């Protein structure tokens, strides 16, 4: 008979308010095998853990259950405490009576919560009786990191890891690193020029010997697990030999074809052979193949003619390269909601209705107008500009339900930039609320209103239309209770920040979770903000949700610190939740081999003493097995089982239902 101890946590009042913990302990004490049961205010506290250890020793317990919060919260804590008291850590189980019981059943009579807690604990007891001691698996760690995305978050992460002395591979989809930050004119709340603070970091990436930079590349496939990822990277054909290109720019000069520039948010054109912007890193142009007549129809080829080092190769093809890394940092960033969604604001119909990011380009000294504010339709300097906040944000019907977080700040910045550049100009801001939480943020908005003449109107815009070369904006000012109509020269929409197109595909390749807006899920919103549920994969920046530059940089560094701490030892211990084959009953049907998502099951043989194969059977590779248990359910002869979730354990729990 096992000697089981039950510890029911009150979690202050979190559990005790709706669960009679004392009664749960008393009921459990009656079950066969239970030799100790008690309840306690805070099991996770240091006295709580000491009590657990003492009870194990005093009562010679060989198995323990802590009925408390979710195992995702404190399973590790209690297993560690049990181990310290001499138990195998896998002889400690958690019953979730907080997140899945006391917090969701608000019955103050405690009847429902207590009944459910008793049931759940009883099921855990029966399951625990079948637990076998398990040993953690040692796995080696490849001390090299992969950073996906070369925006400011990814750049920061890569630089920090490199500075920590480890190798980094930085993969960027576009021809240059820099991301969205490279597009910005000035940055709030200090008004330092975005490129001035970003480009030195970009150059640092290029010069750092520890960093291998793959631009114009995408993640093709990710295999493996923490410490041992195998990543396939598609290096898209640039049609320019990176090694030999000197970045002289002759080819760009000579290229006779122009298309809309994505970097300039369609406000300007670029050549078909191009670098996104003059300070691109690496300073190597790429050919936009779908638009290149030479590649499509074998006409032109001017770039190859003028290229001094002869590094243009129209026959270049995509290459797939494979890299082994120990940790992955995902920093894929954000996009703006397509403005075409805002028909009522005239976008797409009225040329002078632009997005916030387009305004950034107009205000940027490296932008299409050289930093002069000119409206797109006729190039005139606008005498008045209306800024519309929350275009798509906080609007579940038309857009997204969340707040895009940075728009209040950048709109205040826009009004300032506009006032600095067009002294006589008048800016109007239609807003819902001003959200300026952050160091020196509120002061910044006050400055826009008090010193830079921005007129803030609290209310929504109902209609935007064109009349005699003006853009008429109709809206409400809810503070004065008046309807307002403004004759503006230009309208700027603070469009919602959304996740990258294809963010879900990337998540699926990596095996990480995402929410309904396709922003990636952190492991824990407060305590594990840069980790994912997949060990060894970390997040940083706006791929998790709208985020400003300081937060993105902080997260880049945080993710780098996580990767570096992983790299600080040569090997790590992994949970021993792996499949195991019962040799005598395996009949080698290979259903498990087909089912395994990780190719972790091999076809093994048994030989007689003459070396002749007498039978075949499946064999699990412990290093590769991730413990999903798909093979177990697939096995017809029940010859394969999953440690920690054996059939015996599950059926024991079901039988105690």
């Amino acid at each position, binding site marked *: 008979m096992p000697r089981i101890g039950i510890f029911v946590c009150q979690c202050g009042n979190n559990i005790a308010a709706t669960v009679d913990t004392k009664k749960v302990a008393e009921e459990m004490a009656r079950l066969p095998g239970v030799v100790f049961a008690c309840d306690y205010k805070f099991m996770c506290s240091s006295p709580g853990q000491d009590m657990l250890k003492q009870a194990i020793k005093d009562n010679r317990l060989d198995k323990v259950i802590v009925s408390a919060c979710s195992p*995702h919260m404190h399973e590790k804590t209690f297993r560690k405490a049990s181990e310290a008291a001499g138990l195998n850590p896998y002889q400690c189980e958690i019953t979730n009576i907080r997140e*899945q019981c006391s*917090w969701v*059943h*608000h019955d103050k009579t405690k009847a429902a919560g207590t009944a*459910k807690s008793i049931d759940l604990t009883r099921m855990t007891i029966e399951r625990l009786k079948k637990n076998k001691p398990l040993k953690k698996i040692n796995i080696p760690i490849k001390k090299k990191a992969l950073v996906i995305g070369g925006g400011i978050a990814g750049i920061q992460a890569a630089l920090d890891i490199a500075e920590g002395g480890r190798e980094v591979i930085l993969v960027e989809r576009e021809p240059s690193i820099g991301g969205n930050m490279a597009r910005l004119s000035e940055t709030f709340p200090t008004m330092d020029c975005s490129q001035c603070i970003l480009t030195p970091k970009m150059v640092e990436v290029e010069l750092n010997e520890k960093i291998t930079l793959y631009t114009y590349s995408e993640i093709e496939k990710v295999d493996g697990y923490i410490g041992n990822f195998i990543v396939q990277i598609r290096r898209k054909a640039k049609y320019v030999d990176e090694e030999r290109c000197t970045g002289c720019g002759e080819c760009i000069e000579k290229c006779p074809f122009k298309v809309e520039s994505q970097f300039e948010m369609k406000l300007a054109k670029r050549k078909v052979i191009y670098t996104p912007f003059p300070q691109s890193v690496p300073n190597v142009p790429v050919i936009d193949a779908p638009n290149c007549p030479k590649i499509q129809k074998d006409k032109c080829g001017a770039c190859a003619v003028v290229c001094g080092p002869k590094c243009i190769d129209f026959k270049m093809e995509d290459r797939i390269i494979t890299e082994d890394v120990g940790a992955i940092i995902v920093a894929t960033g954000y996009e703006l909601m397509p403005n075409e969604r805002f028909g009522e604001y005239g976008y797409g119909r009225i040329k002078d209705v632009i997005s916030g990011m387009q305004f950034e380009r107009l205000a940027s000294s490296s932008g299409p107008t050289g930093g002069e504010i000119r409206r797109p339709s006729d190039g005139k300097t606008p005498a008045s500009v209306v800024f519309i906040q929350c275009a798509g944000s906080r609007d579940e019907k038309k857009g997204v339900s969340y707040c895009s977080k940075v728009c209040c700040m950048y709109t205040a910045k826009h009004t300032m930039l506009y006032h600095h550049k067009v002294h006589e100009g008048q800016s109007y801001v239609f807003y819902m609320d001003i959200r300026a939480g952050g160091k020196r943020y509120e002061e910044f908005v006050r400055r826009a209103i008090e010193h830079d003449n921005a007129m803030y109107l609290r209310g929504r815009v109902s209609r935007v239309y064109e009349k005699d070369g003006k853009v008429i904006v109709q809206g409400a000012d809810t503070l004065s209770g008046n309807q307002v109509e403004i004759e503006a020269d230009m309208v700027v929409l603070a469009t919602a920040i959304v996740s990258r197109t294809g963010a879900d595909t990337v998540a699926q390749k990596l095996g990480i*979770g995402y929410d309904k807006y396709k922003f990636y899920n952190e492991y824990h919103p407060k305590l594990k903000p840069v980790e994912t549920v997949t060990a060894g994969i970390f997040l940083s920046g706006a791929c998790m949700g709208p985020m400003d530059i300081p937060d993105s940089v902080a997260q880049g560094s945080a993710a780098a610190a996580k990767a570096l701490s992983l790299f600080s030892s040569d090997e790590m211990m992994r949970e021993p939740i792996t499949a195991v084959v019962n040799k005598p009953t395996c009949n080698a049907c290979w259903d498990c081999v087909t089912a395994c*998502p990780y190719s972790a099951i091999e076809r093994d043989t048994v030989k007689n003493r003459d070396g002749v194969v007498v039978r075949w059977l499946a064999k699990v590779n412990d290093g590769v097995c991730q413990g999903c*248990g798909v093979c177990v359910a*697939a096995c017809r002869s029940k010859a394969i089982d999953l440690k920690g979730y054996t059939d015996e354990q599950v059926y024991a729990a079901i039988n105690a239902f």
Partner: protein
Amino acid sequence: MTAHGKQTEYQTGGFEPKIMAYVCNWCTYAGADLAGTSRMEYRPNVRIIKLPCTGRIDPLFIIKAFENGADGVLVSGCHPGDCHYTTGNYHARRRWIGFKNLMEFTGIDMRRLHFSWVSASEAIKWVDLINKVTDEIKQLGPFMEYKGLKGK
């Protein structure tokens, strides 16, 4: 009844179904945890068994649950394409389709058996699902057909 609906039926002393839920560790279990962290409220009739992946679920688990007095069974995991183990939930889905037909053939009311996708961020979906399933099974009454089989 919505996520924030007030639960009153529990105290009325009527038939309270027992529902077994087999959920995966990464999506639905975390989604159910989130419902708790967000202090939502749902019917207390469900008992969750956590498994690493829905792909681990043997159809026999479901039959055993019925034998042991479950009035309904719920299986829930990551959305298609979002499986933590890449393809585990596809196995579960395929197995489910075959199993469902078999159960239907044996005459089990399919309102007693539910398969759902609930992600780690879909606490509200979890709450609505539990409430809906509980209410439906409450109307169907106790499930007796399999209970006699236990131990035979």
